[in-house]
């Protein structure tokens, strides 16, 4: 059994709400309230929750993009402290992210070969960048020659492959996906999930997949964490939690998922 890779303890984050009274105290929205989380090496953790559950806030904290009010995020025991880009360079080499909408996460005026090489440049990764770009493009099922094209020349599924290639370029140990397949058509979605699952088994990549889609999480993840109202409603092995939900909220969530008639 491998040890913990990414670990969060007692995370709290609240945001001030707009004032409703001139003199009264300002109220706060507690987006994340005491969340603990452990990602072990080679495992895939699904974070499930509906809008307002605190998924995005938790993700920002885990990526070191936001500072928790209380609690800490550690990577292999070393604390992740948000600050200048330079102080987190070591962390960015280890943990990369794929966002929901590939069109808005790729610069429309940058050829995709250059876009995929960008993390290599900005993180100061040594080695032949051109060769690495060709390698990761091939790994996600694209032709290395496609590096000369612009994002608009690709389909939505291809763009998400490019975003995955870019995230994998600096050889991270952890890939965080924020709804990585929600914007894709169902037939493309299955292929992208397959691709991600492949990297877990062949490259020993660890995944955190934030999603509202239980089918996606069930397909990809061995561990699951159900987020509700900023707290963890339920957690455990995906098979156990999703087959025998203990928390009433998990049950409500599972009951609501539309099913295909068999």
């Amino acid at each position, binding site marked *: 059994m491998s040890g913990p890779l990414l670990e969060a303890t007692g995370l709290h984050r609240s945001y001030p709400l707009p004032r409703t009274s001139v003199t009264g105290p300002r109220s706060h929205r507690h987006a994340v309230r005491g969340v603990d989380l452990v990602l072990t090496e080679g495992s895939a953790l699904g974070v499930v929750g*509906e*809008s307002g559950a605190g998924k995005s806030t938790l993700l920002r904290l885990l990526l070191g993009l936001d500072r928790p009010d209380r609690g800490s995020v550690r990577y292999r025991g070393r604390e992740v402290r948000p600050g200048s880009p330079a102080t987190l360079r070591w962390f960015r080499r280890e943990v990369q992210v794929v966002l929901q909408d590939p069109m808005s996460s790729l610069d429309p005026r940058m050829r995709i070969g250059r876009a995929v090489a960008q993390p290599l440049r900005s993180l100061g990764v040594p080695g032949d960048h051109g060769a690495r770009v060709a390698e990761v493009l091939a790994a996600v099922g694209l032709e290395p020659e496609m590096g000369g094209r612009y994002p608009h020349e690709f389909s*939505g599924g291809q763009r998400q492959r490019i975003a995955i290639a870019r995230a994998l370029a600096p050889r991270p140990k952890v890939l965080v996906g924020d709804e990585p*397949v929600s914007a894709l*058509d*169902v*037939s493309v*979605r*299955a*292929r992208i*999930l*397959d691709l991600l699952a492949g990297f877990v088994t062949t490259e020993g990549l660890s995944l955190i997949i934030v999603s*509202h*889609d*239980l*089918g*996606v999480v*069930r*397909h990809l993840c061995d561990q699951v964490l159900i987020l509700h109202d900023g707290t963890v409603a339920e957690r455990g092995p995906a*098979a156990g939690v*999703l*087959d025998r939900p203990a928390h009433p909220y998990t049950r*409500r*969530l*599972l*009951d*609501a*998922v*539309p*099913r*295909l*008639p*068999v």
Partner: protein
Amino acid sequence: MTLLEIEDLTVRFGAGPGAPAPVVDRVGFSLGAGERLGLIGESGSGKSLTALAIAGLLPPGATATGSVRLSVPLNAGIRRVRPVPIGPQELLGQRERILAGLRGDVIGFVFQEPLTALNPMMRVGAQIGEPLRIHRGHSRRAARAAAVELAARVGLPDPERIVRAYPHQLSGGQRQRVGIAVALACRPALIIADEPTTALDVTVQAEILRLLSGLVHEEGSALLFISHDLAVVAQTCERVAVMRGGRILEEGPTLDVLRDPREPYTGELVAAARATAWTGVRQEIGP
């Protein structure tokens, strides 16, 4: 009785020899009164443009040919401010004045994103009552009373109070309930719902689908339900038509199409949906 009969519906952008291929290509189907048909397809399959063409809402530059025939029911006892022709009639090429009289009255539309479909500057009660003021000549007061009643019917909490709220003050699910109330206000014979739950959370989606199916059933309206989600369509519609590249590939009872698809593409779509759909059992993708 056939309510809507579509034949050879073709939508294209631009005209002449150099024009691109049609985005909706010789589409045909019919919808009986009270029937629920799901139109399913991936992005770019032409499903939304088909719906817009029916209601005469195509974007500028798009032209439709073929035939869209709607049988406008005589709803006895209803006073229409804008008289609309009764009985079967062709909608394509119809004058805008007539189409505007049909929309919101005989044809109700529920859109995907209620926040963009609703007017941010107008209280939701006024928006729910607006079709009644326009099509039925309700006074401000009568429309308001009807709006409170409709708000209650679509399950909005505290209807008396909520009709005074603005759209941004409501949750996504509540906004879509308002959208449904607007569509139902004049008790339309045909409701077109274009991805009405795609922007919503699953628990809210389940509530909205239940509400929409229930109300469509109570009112006896026909429903044209557009979605990319096979499971959602299967839950809502007894018939389904599969679109790809602007054409309807196959059409039939939902269960038959899902269990025994005739077209290879439908088979792939069902397999892909099953692979990631929630079935309670882990499924493997691919070989």
